[in-house]
């Protein structure tokens, strides 16, 4: 029970900072929307994209914008030596990992509240799919992305080239998850039956579980400052 309270405490702290400064969230939503606009122009103005291309475009915007927020979560702790303070506090590294992953999860979810409607406005005039069909895909990808991303951003924040290294290290790892999400989203946009999408959702869930466990076990090594 007390570890749950500690996790919620850390989560509340990070969300409060975010709420007051709004630095990550605004840049994530702004950058994501910008990518959607650029891709809309790149796809050809006035042309309608099919479900497969549309799904790919949506995920490019989400993944690229999410990296922005991910980089900030640890860079902020590093700036004032807060990592050392976190480590000497009676909170275990595993709990820090869960809290940080939850922060990233919520940031991604909040930015998607902006990005998905923008996507529908720009591309979706001929997709008559229910936007709610995207929810399970979004949740699973956010979970996998935030757990893997938390571990990798702890590593990249410990180096001299945080902003450059984070996407380089992270994108190859989450490529299978993204590819599955794209395929599932294409199915949802083309209003194919849900049972067909399970074929992608189940491996996505497996990815999330494996990387949550691996992240929880490896995070103490990634954050420790020798």
């Amino acid at each position, binding site marked *: 029970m007390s570890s749950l309270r500690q996790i919620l405490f850390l989560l509340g702290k990070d969300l409060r900072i975010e709420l007051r400064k709004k630095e990550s969230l605004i840049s994530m939503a702004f950058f994501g929307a910008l990518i959607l606009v650029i891709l809309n122009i790149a796809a050809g103005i006035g042309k309608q994209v099919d479900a497969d291309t549309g799904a790919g475009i949506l995920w490019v915007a989400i993944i690229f914008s999410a990296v922005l927020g991910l980089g900030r979560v640890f860079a902020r702790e590093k700036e004032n030596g807060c990592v050392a303070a976190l480590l000497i506090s009676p909170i275990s590294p595993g709990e820090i990992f869960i809290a940080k992953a939850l922060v990233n999860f919520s940031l991604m979810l909040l930015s998607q509240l902006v990005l998905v409607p923008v996507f529908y406005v720009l591309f979706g005039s001929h997709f008559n799919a229910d936007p709610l069909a995207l929810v399970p895909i979004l949740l699973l990808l956010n979970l996998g992305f935030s757990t893997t991303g938390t571990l990798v951003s702890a590593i990249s924040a410990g180096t001299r080239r945080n902003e450059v290294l984070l996407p380089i*290290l992270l994108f190859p790892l989450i490529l299978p998850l993204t590819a599955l999400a794209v395929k599932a989203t294409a199915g949802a946009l083309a209003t194919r039956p849900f049972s067909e999408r399970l074929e992608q959702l189940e491996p996505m869930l497996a990815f999330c579980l494996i990387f949550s466990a691996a992240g929880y076990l490896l995070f103490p090594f990634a954050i420790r400052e020798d």
Partner: protein
Amino acid sequence: MTPLNRATFLPALATLLVPLAIGMIFFYAPLEKSMGIIQKIFYFHLSLAGAAFLSFFIACVSGIMYLLKRQRIWDARLAASIEIGVVLTTLVLISGSLWGRPIWNTWWTWDPRLTTSLILWFIFASGLILRSAIDEESKRATFCAVMAIIGFVDVPIVFLSARLWRSIHPTVIRSAGIGLESSMLVTLVVSMVAMLVFCAALFHLRCIQHQQESTVRDLQQQLQL
């Protein structure tokens, strides 16, 4: 004296075995019926791929051992196996492309095996970039160990999901694997052994180099104090 002996023994064995394998590929193994001379690339391609996956496995094991024991030797092994693995995977991708062009009529296709190799290449090449970005020794070793473990964990997932997102398999790869003629099989085994010995020699030399490098750095620090 034993490490020195091994350092000379493995390269010597490799210089015997690699020409033997090349000779067998071109003069002993029969010409494949439908693919012709281009099929000769298969012996190298497969042995390179085998050695590449093996070195990523060694990287993962070394990573785990480093995190458990914190000994420098495991970091040297980790670094050496990642380097060799990246070089070998590059060669696998190139030789596969060269083979695929005349046979499949394309340089690249999203077959599960090709996808897995490419993503593996990206993961471990990013590990090399990570290594170059950190100066502090223990931190570099720890971070690389974490990346090697998580990268290797990713491999089965990549393979599985690549099979799901592309459902049409080119069966060419499979038919090349099964039903080899015995002389082809012998050639394949010889070239695989040659490649493994060659990689073991490289691995050993790189390990020694990495260890010497850190010893030199220690001495440098002692002199400065």
